[in-house]
């Protein structure tokens, strides 16, 4: 399938249709100690194969959100990640292959972001291995920008997915059962909420043009992670104000208040430089501090992105001792690494 774009889009690639496989090949070439690739299925596998007796964790989704999910495959996090085309959920065959590859006899947890496509394709994959491998699934749906889930496909899965993968990964590494690991994942999803905004659109390589247009002084508020437009458009404002737009709905949705401790995650959408992400973190810290909410752990950087979109999202996860312990547990992946 050739691109229908009028001109070659200004990105680093050879052929549009080879972006995903070549990126995965690059990931494996850069981190041979961490991952291998099932090239037939565009699946990133933890080097060394399944760990017998450990619950296998897989996730997957459209590409273009890197390092999610392939960059989170490795010790203490995922066992496999299925990479779809850019912003297109992978097909069931991929998740089936991933599920079979990581099964260590203790069952497999599917971590699915709540998008119709992802949910349906993962569901079909689970059916394909039904009776052979015990599969549980958790659907992340943390995006408070999606307000009325009666009139939508439900809240989208965004930033919290990274935290679920890390924390459930630690639980699995600790030898917990599939039921326990699933419960931990559900707990993290339940205690975490996110919201994001964009200063620019991104360009899907095969489409060749920006998904949406924004004026020089406009901000798209309540965006997801697929370059899709947000819930409303606002005039560009100070970062303090913009951080408030994101933090407020999260704090009220989670019912956070004085005395609570959170993991504060300021995520770049891909095209915003780190210097600005730390400025945004400073605003978030100031807002939370003003409400007596303590930041127990934090994460700042590009972890769940929309290609080169400029902007940021905020995710807050209400912490307790169990979650702190699992967050701090060693992890060794391409994108997240500590204690190992």
């Amino acid at each position: 399938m050739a691109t229908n774009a009028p001109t070659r889009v200004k990105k680093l690639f050879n052929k549009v249709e080879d972006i995903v496989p070549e990126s995965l090949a690059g990931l494996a070439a850069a981190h041979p100690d961490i991952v291998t690739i099932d090239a037939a299925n565009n699946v990133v596998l933890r080097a060394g194969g399944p760990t017998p007796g450990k619950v296998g964790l897989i996730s997957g989704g459209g590409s273009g959100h890197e390092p999610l999910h392939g960059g989170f495959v490795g010790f203490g996090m995922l066992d496999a990640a299925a990479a779809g085309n850019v912003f297109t959920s992978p097909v069931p065959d991929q998740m089936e292959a991933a599920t079979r590859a990581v099964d260590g006899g203790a069952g497999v947890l599917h971590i699915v972001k709540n998008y119709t496509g992802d949910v349906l394709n993962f569901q079909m994959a689970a059916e394909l291995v039904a009776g052979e491998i015990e599969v549980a699934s958790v659907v992340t749906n943390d995006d408070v920008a999606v307000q009325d889930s009666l009139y939508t496909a439900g809240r989208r899965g965004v930033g919290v997915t990274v935290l679920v993968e890390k924390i459930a990964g630690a639980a699995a590494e600790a030898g917990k059962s599939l039921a326990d690991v699933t419960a931990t994942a559900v707990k993290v999803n339940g205690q975490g909420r996110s919201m994001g905004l964009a200063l620019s659109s991104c360009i899907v390589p095969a489409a060749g043009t920006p998904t949406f247009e924004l004026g020089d002084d406009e901000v798209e508020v309540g965006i997801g992670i697929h370059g899709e437009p947000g819930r409303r458009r606002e005039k560009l404002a100070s970062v303090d104000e913009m951080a408030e737009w994101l933090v407020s709905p999260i704090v009220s949705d989670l019912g956070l208040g004085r005395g609570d401790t959170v993991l504060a995650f300021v995520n770049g959408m891909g095209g915003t430089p780190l210097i600005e992400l730390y400025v945004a973190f400073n605003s978030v810290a100031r807002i939370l501090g003003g409400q007596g909410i303590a930041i127990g752990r934090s994460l700042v950087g590009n972890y769940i992105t929309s290609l080169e979109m400029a902007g940021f999202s905020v995710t807050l996860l209400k912490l307790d001792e169990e979650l702190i312990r699992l967050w701090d547990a060693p992890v060794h992946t391409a994108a997240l690494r500590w204690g190992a």
Partner: protein
Amino acid sequence: MQHALEAWLRSAATRIHEQAPALTALDQAIGDGDHGINMDRGFAAIVTALDGLPPVDPGKTDVAASADLLRLVGRTLISTVGGASGPLYGTAFLRAAAALAALPVEAPPSTPAVVVTALEAAVAGIGALGKATTGEKTMLDALVPATEAARAAVDGGADTAAVLAAARDAAAAGAAATEPMLATKGRASYLGERSIGHRDPGATSSALLVDVLAGVVADADVAV
């Protein structure tokens, strides 16, 4: 029927490829800008699969061979499209295949009735998997009226060409009718009020598929 199906699928692949940028543009407005790309990939894979098919077993009935073909198409779409539309369209073809396979071998109903039965099964499959109904700004807004029009035409004694012509007109109207709708399913639902005023990409591709089917069947060269 099996030949008509194959002609339809090849023709649809061409039309989808031509229309891919337009479908993608619709999806950029209220989705994530990949619907044309997804459908193009899926139908290109269908053509490849058709090209690789062995000759049909002469012992098979036309209905059975058609069911096999539809099953292959469903599997191919599920394995290559991804996104929401892959499982939905894929399931539609699998359900249509199952509906054909379930027909009594002894006394098969008339062709127009078979076509409508398959169409109904397909559309019901989409509704069940996507947990959606009409008025939610999805492909169902093209497909449900198309199926209803086809059923009405069959009940009125129309031939296959007329049945599909009725389906085509209803699908086209249904797709157009998604424009003022507020999306409550799929990615467009995240836009809330802002989804209003844009035509749904899935309804548009659905109308296109029905249009090509009606065209192929109307074409004298292709016996149904």
